[in-house]
């Protein structure tokens, strides 16, 4: 169970997203998750061992480290990435629920009856609202975590020297943080990508609302041209799926041969 599992779950979400949603997913996978895995975890790897305090008092080092780093940046970003990607799974859950309803309806009334939904993946009715709330949730989560980062660390990201006078440290003790400049650079990078994601999600919300408003004005009778665009896949979004193939994803691919290529087989089996 690792990030490949989450990527396997999310790679199927693309089918039901707008273009903004796909760009957002690509940014999250490439600029946030990948950078987090290959760089941040290594930069913060030695954080407590190399947090040096100018004292021989046992326990002072532990206490000062705990005072200045109540929660590690890497853990905060790991939680942020998990929480920010989960709302997309709500959409997949809703689509699977619709497909299940359609299947039960067909079982009850026969194969030739009028279907409940024209297209279970199209964002109409309840699915539109699920998608809309998932976007709001994503923005809120990103904003809350960025705020937490600034609040917990009081926006003083990695001064090379911190002064600590927590008990049992005698008087005021100088403590030195390992690799402060590198940590500062990566923190700025992760914060900037969070803001970019918030901005993209905001644009997607405006696009979704604008589209719905235009449809309502037109009377909603004609199908949108944009629908065919929604169903195509861009090269960007295919890349992460090809690069990472966790064992869960491969195993479930063997089991689920009926679904389209772009779906996350593991998750659709879980919810169907």
């Amino acid at each position, binding site marked *: 169970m690792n990030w490949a599992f989450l990527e396997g779950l999310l790679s199927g979400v693309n089918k039901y997203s707008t273009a903004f949603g796909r760009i957002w997913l690509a940014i999250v996978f490439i600029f946030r998750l990948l950078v987090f895995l290959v760089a941040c975890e290594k930069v913060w790897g030695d954080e407590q061992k190399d947090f040096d305090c100018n004292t021989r008092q046992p326990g002072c080092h*532990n206490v000062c480290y705990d005072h200045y780093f*109540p929660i590690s940046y890497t853990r905060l970003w790991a939680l942020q990435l998990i929480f920010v990607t989960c709302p997309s799974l709500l959409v997949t859950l809703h689509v699977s629920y619709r497909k299940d309803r359609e299947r039960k309806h067909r079982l009850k009334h026969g194969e030739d009856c009028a279907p409940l939904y024209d297209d279970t993946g199209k964002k109409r009715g309840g699915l539109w609202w699920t998608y809309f709330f998932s976007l709001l949730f994503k923005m809120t989560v990103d904003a809350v975590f960025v705020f937490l980062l600034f609040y917990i660390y009081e926006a003083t990201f990695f001064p090379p020297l911190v002064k600590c006078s927590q008990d049992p440290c005698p008087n005021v003790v100088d403590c030195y943080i390992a690799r402060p400049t590198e940590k500062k650079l990566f923190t700025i990078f992760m914060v900037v990508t969070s803001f970019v994601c918030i901005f993209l999600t905001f644009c997607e919300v405006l696009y979704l609302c604008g589209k719905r408003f235009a449809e309502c004005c037109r009377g909603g009778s004609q199908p949108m041209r944009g629908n065919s665009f929604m169903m195509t896949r861009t090269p960007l979004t295919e890349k992460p799926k090809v690069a990472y193939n966790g064992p869960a994803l491969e195993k479930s691919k063997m089991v689920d041969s009926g679904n389209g290529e772009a779906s996350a087989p593991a998750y659709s089996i879980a919810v169907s």
Partner: protein
Amino acid sequence: MSWPALYTQLVGANRHSTSLGKIWLSVLFIFRVMVLVVAAESVWGDEQSDFVCNTLQPGCENVCYDQFFPVSHIRLWCLQLVFVSTPTLLVAMYVAYRNHKDKKRLMQSSGRAGFLSNKGQEEEVEALKKRRLPIAGALWWTYACSLLFRLLFEGGFMYALYVVYDGFQMPRLVQCDQWPCPNLVDCFISRPTEKTIFTVFMATASSICMVLNMAELAYLVAKAVTRALCGQRERRASRDRTQSKTNQRSLVST
């Protein structure tokens, strides 16, 4: 055996779950197993090496660590997640047993009839494997038992964690006077705040899972009661219909 292997097992059994059961599985694997593996394990990674005591007495640190951490949080959570996932396998076992029974019946009936071709038989067997059994009868009882066990295990492990560590908060300083420590020795735990945050997070996720399980149990009971009442009403209606038919026939004959 690893977490992905457990996930594959549970996903197979999940086909016969209710919607709440599916949400429970997602919460379990995303907010508990994933968080445990990618975050919590690294927080507790240096728990013994950075458990520092204000003494040079050899053995004192080991003894004090053992006194305050009889079982590591991580190991307790791993055990909890394994125990909580296994009742679902009860349902999988029952479904496998039902499929086996139905397959045997199918083979016997086709043997007696003698007209079903091999291909037809294979298709029927495949359809049997792919079907989704309704949660009724013995499957209902199996499913309800699995939910009860899940609730018991969740509650049990949460209580055990609370009792062993005297709450969900990790103190910065613990005082130890176990032999061979001379007098009372101050020992400092590594990353206590981060550990408290993750302990509270895992306890919250566990509580959410318990609430989901209770809701699922209530839903199952309500469904069974409604089915029983509907069944009673239908039986009464059909009895009334047959009664009126016999009355009509007796009227006609007289």
